[in-house]
């Protein structure tokens, strides 16, 4: 059973350079209890994809060019604002990157948690309070009943991110979208937050889309991974497969650039060049100007996403050779 099914999604932005596609032909499925990792550099279209699912893209300047986003049998792109509001929260919850600015500074965290309950359910203040305490306890906050009356500035970054997770989960969403949930936290807190998300997934059985540029986070969390580059999916594979046998040159570049304690190199390996400007995309394969494996055909043919092995797809003209290496 699939919970969320994104098909052929294209998101366009009107800019001074004309209309550009920030997300181009992106599609994926998510099953209950599954964790999908979406990796890519800043500007690769991963956050835009998440915002499109939530219906949070500002229109204008953005516009959905084509595609569908099915959640529990309804196409979210066809829903009006009022219906979409009922999906946000109890259907799909979202947590953001910046825990420091994701909580309203003028209200206590209890106020904010209870407000989220109030938006979607008719329940008394006492039940709301109980629910808020329960949720804080579940995300591992000590003395939850006392923390309820704290203001956000009284909490550490890690605790605020826990509160954010509690807020996103308080309405029991079927799907949680986590947009770089740990980027702004220090490493030990990152680890705690990731473990918390894994525990909550096991406990509540929701599907999680985790968006990150950190391969370590993907390795730890995801069941399946999609790699995005310049608005397109370049590779899709189960997590072990991706780490053991990456096919697409971009994925390989990303994996090679992870520093490791074991190697003695003085400089980190990098991918030469930068992400192309979205209004000046190269012809053919979008990664081609930066690619070590480039051949002449790369500049004229857009490689389709095609199967490499069972469950593993990639978008490279030379993927059979690369897979056979």
């Amino acid at each position: 059973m699939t919970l969320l099914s994104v098909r052929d999604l294209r998101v366009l932005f009107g800019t001074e350079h004309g209309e550009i596609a920030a997300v181009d032909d992106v599609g994926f499925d998510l099953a209950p209890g599954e964790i999908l990792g979406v990796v890519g550099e800043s500007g690769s279209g991963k956050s835009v994809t998440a915002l499109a699912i939530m219906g949070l893209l500002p229109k204008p300047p953005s516009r959905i060019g084509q595609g569908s986003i099915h959640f529990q049998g309804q196409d979210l792109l066809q829903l009006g604002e009022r219906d979409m509001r009922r999906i946000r929260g109890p259907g799909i919850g979202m947590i953001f990157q910046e825990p420091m600015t994701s909580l309203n500074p003028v209200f206590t965290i209890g106020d904010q948690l209870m407000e989220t309950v109030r938006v979607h359910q008719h329940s008394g203040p006492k039940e709301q309070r109980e629910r808020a305490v329960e949720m804080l306890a579940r995300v591992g906050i000590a003395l939850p009943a006392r923390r309820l009356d704290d203001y956000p500035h009284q909490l550490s970054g890690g605790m605020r991110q826990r509160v954010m997770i509690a807020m996103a989960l308080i309405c029991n969403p079927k799907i949680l979208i986590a947009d770089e949930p740990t980027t702004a936290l220090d490493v030990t807190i990152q680890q705690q937050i990731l473990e918390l998300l894994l525990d909550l997934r096991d406990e509540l059985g929701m599907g999680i889309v985790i968006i990150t540029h950190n391969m370590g986070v993907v390795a730890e969390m995801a069941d399946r991974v999609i790699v995005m580059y310049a608005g397109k999916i370049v590779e899709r594979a189960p997590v072990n497969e991706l780490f053991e046998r990456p096919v697409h040159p971009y994925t390989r570049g990303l994996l090679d650039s992870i520093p490791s304690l074991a190697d003695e190199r003085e400089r980190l390996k990098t991918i030469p060049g930068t992400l192309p400007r979205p209004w000046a995309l190269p012809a053919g394969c979008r990664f081609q100007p930066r690619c070590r494996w480039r051949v002449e055909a790369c500049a004229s043919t857009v490689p389709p996403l095609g199967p490499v092995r069972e469950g593993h797809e990639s978008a490279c003209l030379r993927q059979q050779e690369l897979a056979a290496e």
Partner: protein
Amino acid sequence: MADSAVAFDEAVAAAAEPERRSARWDTLRRLWRHRSFKFGLALFAIIVAAAVLAPWISPVSPNKLQMRLRFEPPSWDHPFGTDNLGRSQLARVVYGAQLSLFIGTMVVLVNAVFGTLIGALAGYFKQLDNALMRINDAIMAFPAVLLAIGVAAVLGRSTPNMILALSIVYIPRTARIVRSSVIVVSQMEYVQAAVAAGAGHWRILRRHILPNSMAPLLVQLSFLFAYAVLTEATLSFLGLGAEPPAPTWGNIMSEGRQYMREAPWIITIPGAALAITVMALNLLGDGLRDVLDPRLKIQQ
């Protein structure tokens, strides 16, 4: 791992305990420590006290004519002197303070309500922004005093009309300030988070955006109070304020102008009262701005 995290959180919680609920107190404490704010507040309090206690400060009616006592210079019996009709200047100045402060307060209230409403609608709903702000710009294109003169002349002389004229002049300026801070706050992640949690527009505006965009408005309103008092005096001086027997600072100065040489106290005392009021409000506003919006602070 999880256990140690909990233990750590508890330690942090215990350490943070004395600081509970400190944010608002901290703001008040910093205001209290701000010297020019304190000074402005004290001056303003004196003026408000004078206005409120007017009947006790001066038992004589401000409109009582005493022809034997024309042009008395300030003395123990007549602390602020008397004018060309023998009226007590003290009475006229403190009763004038009542009217000035009343008009200032009303203009500030009307601005707070309508400026916030227009600014919030323009800043939050992009479809309305252009229409509302172009009307705003059109009004702001007129110099404040000229526009107030025009409106006051069309509406006729009365206190409510004065409040209306000053509100029409200043609401666009207030709306613009609210709009810009609403736009800034709308970009905050907690607003996105509230949208992502399924909150509607009204709730987002009321709970998340407006409470966080109030600081610049508060600063603006304290300056606005000063402008309103000053513009009211200007209009009265030009003969567009309350009808002459009514003691407004502008009226008193306008009448005293003719006797400036012989009886300078008639024009200088209400002038000084006006200057002190405006200065008090400006010092107050400066203090508020320094404390509420530290980014704008001018390095001293």
